[in-house]
């Protein structure tokens, strides 16, 4: 049989979960990571990263809106997807997706953004005309009260929401890890470390994404990049990355040392079909290189211009590495037979419902949402004034 080496159970030859399911944990990871970065400022009062607070929230929202789409497209019967809300099966990790998603989207993200932006929304309502005015009116739920007492209340509730939001973000992505980690039939997935690894890799990818977006948006707006802010984000990225890498290595070393019945099969897979995506892309280029680069910026004094270049490079490599990690989990977990006697191949289609073009479109979509959101709810500038005044430090 083409693409098959050794023996596969006959129903295993075709992969069930495609590139779209790779995209899904990648996108939710970005959401969770971006939100956790935002909450650092709010809850832990890391003042230097304040300029990214709103951008991080809007990034989280844009990606969150796209998160269920790959799942929806992958379903054989998308029209039945509401059954997950109507008759959720309590023993299924996947059934909880709908609820965790709704909770996180509505109760955490939308509420926090709304409370934080309410003053701006009302101000923009007064400034704008026509359709835009109506949109702002709807966003303000028709209530234009921005008295100091009302805003104080918003701030207090917003703080509480952020505190609730942190465990929610962990829940959101930890549970995505659990979807894979709880499948006992699949030794590549089945691991209690899976949710933890997913959470830390989510934070890594989300922090890297916000760092890149912050630099890109500033560049596009021809504003000076607040290098102290980026320095601080890069520092967090570095430490998070070390934890993430340690966890992943722990998992790997544990597997290699235990070398259970599945080891020979998985080891062969990593050395053959997954060599490029796992060893080269994920570990060498996507993890070790950015850790090394970020480590250099932590150890040595380097000019701001070069630092920015290093941050950009390591940020991009990080995102690629985390995407490769999701790929290796989702696709890798389906390439070997559960008989441990053979391997199949993933052939990515181009224009089908689950093909490459759709995947690319879905990867671009959050940026379109983000552009609209940034236009509607500007994260920088004078509307930011009620927060701390933006330090005008450039390089």
């Amino acid at each position, binding site marked *: 049989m083409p693409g098959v080496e050794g023996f596969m159970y006959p129903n295993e030859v075709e992969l069930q979960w495609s590139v779209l399911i790779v995209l899904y944990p990648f996108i939710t990871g970005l959401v969770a990571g971006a939100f956790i970065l935002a909450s650092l400022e709010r809850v832990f009062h890391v003042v230097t990263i304040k300029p990214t607070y709103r951008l991080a929230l809007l990034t989280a929202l844009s990606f969150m809106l796209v998160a269920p789409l790959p799942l929806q497209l992958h379903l054989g019967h998308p029209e039945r997807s*509401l059954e997950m809300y*109507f*008759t959720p099966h309590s023993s299924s990790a996947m059934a909880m997706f709908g609820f965790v998603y709704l909770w996180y989207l*509505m109760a955490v993200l939308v509420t926090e953004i709304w409370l934080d932006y309410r003053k701006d929304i009302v101000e923009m309502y007064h400034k704008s005309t026509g359709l835009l005015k109506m949109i702002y009116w709807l966003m*303000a*739920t028709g*209530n234009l009260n921005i008295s100091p*007492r009302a805003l104080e*209340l*918003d701030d207090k509730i917003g703080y509480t929401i952020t505190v609730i939001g942190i465990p929610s973000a962990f829940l959101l992505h930890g549970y995505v890890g659990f979807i894979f980690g709880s499948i006992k039939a699949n030794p590549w997935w089945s691991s209690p470390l899976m949710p933890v690894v997913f959470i830390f890799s989510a934070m890594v990818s989300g922090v890297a994404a916000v760092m890149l977006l912050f630099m890109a948006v500033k560049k596009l707006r021809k504003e000076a990049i607040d290098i102290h802010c980026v320095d601080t984000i890069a520092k967090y990225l570095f430490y998070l990355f070390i934890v993430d890498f340690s966890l992943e290595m722990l998992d790997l070393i544990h597997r290699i040392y235990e070398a259970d019945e599945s080891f020979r099969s998985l080891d062969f897979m990593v050395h053959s079909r997954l060599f490029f995506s796992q060893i080269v892309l994920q570990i060498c280029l996507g993890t070790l290189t950015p850790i090394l680069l970020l480590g250099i910026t932590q150890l040595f004094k380097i000019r701001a211009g070069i630092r920015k270049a290093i941050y950009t490079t390591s940020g991009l490599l990080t995102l690629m590495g985390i995407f490769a990690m999701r790929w290796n989990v989702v696709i890798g977990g389906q390439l070997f037979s559960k008989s441990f006697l053979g391997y199949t191949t993933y052939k990515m289609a181009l224009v089908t419902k689950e093909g490459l073009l759709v995947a690319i479109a879905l990867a671009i979509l959050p940026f379109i949402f983000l552009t609209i959101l940034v236009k509607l709810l500007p994260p920088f500038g004078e509307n930011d004034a009620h927060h701390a005044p933006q330090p005008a430090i450039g390089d």
Partner: protein
Amino acid sequence: MAIFKDTGHLFRFAALFVVGTTSIFVLRAIVTPKSFGQYGHYRGAALKDLADRPVKYAGHQACEVCHTDIVTTKTAGKHAGVNCEACHGPLAKHADDPSNTPAKLDTAVLCVKCHAASAAKPKGFPQVQADDHSGGLACDTCHKPHDPAIAAGGAK
């Protein structure tokens, strides 16, 4: 009211949540199939749907009602444990309507499906290298399919 003076917007926002949640519950009550949960967390009527499918293999009990002569021959021979449709194919249509007669079988193709020699088969199972064994003759030249052993009086 004083309490709503600076909290009105929050109540409006909360109201949206209440409306959203309620509509999920209302929709759920309308959409969920009636028999859901009858036996467990699934649609109870699904059991009936599955059980109601028509059969394609009638089962040897159905064949034996009419073909009593074959039953007699077969039960005495080596093929006693082989059910009719194992060789003759799915015949529920024939059982339903006996005038719907099945196609004749070609023993040259049929018998080797089981009896072609292979080291993987159980040692005691009768198996032959078809070419050497019959020299190209159809199996039923010598063996009666319903009672194949030649020594037992099966030779034609």
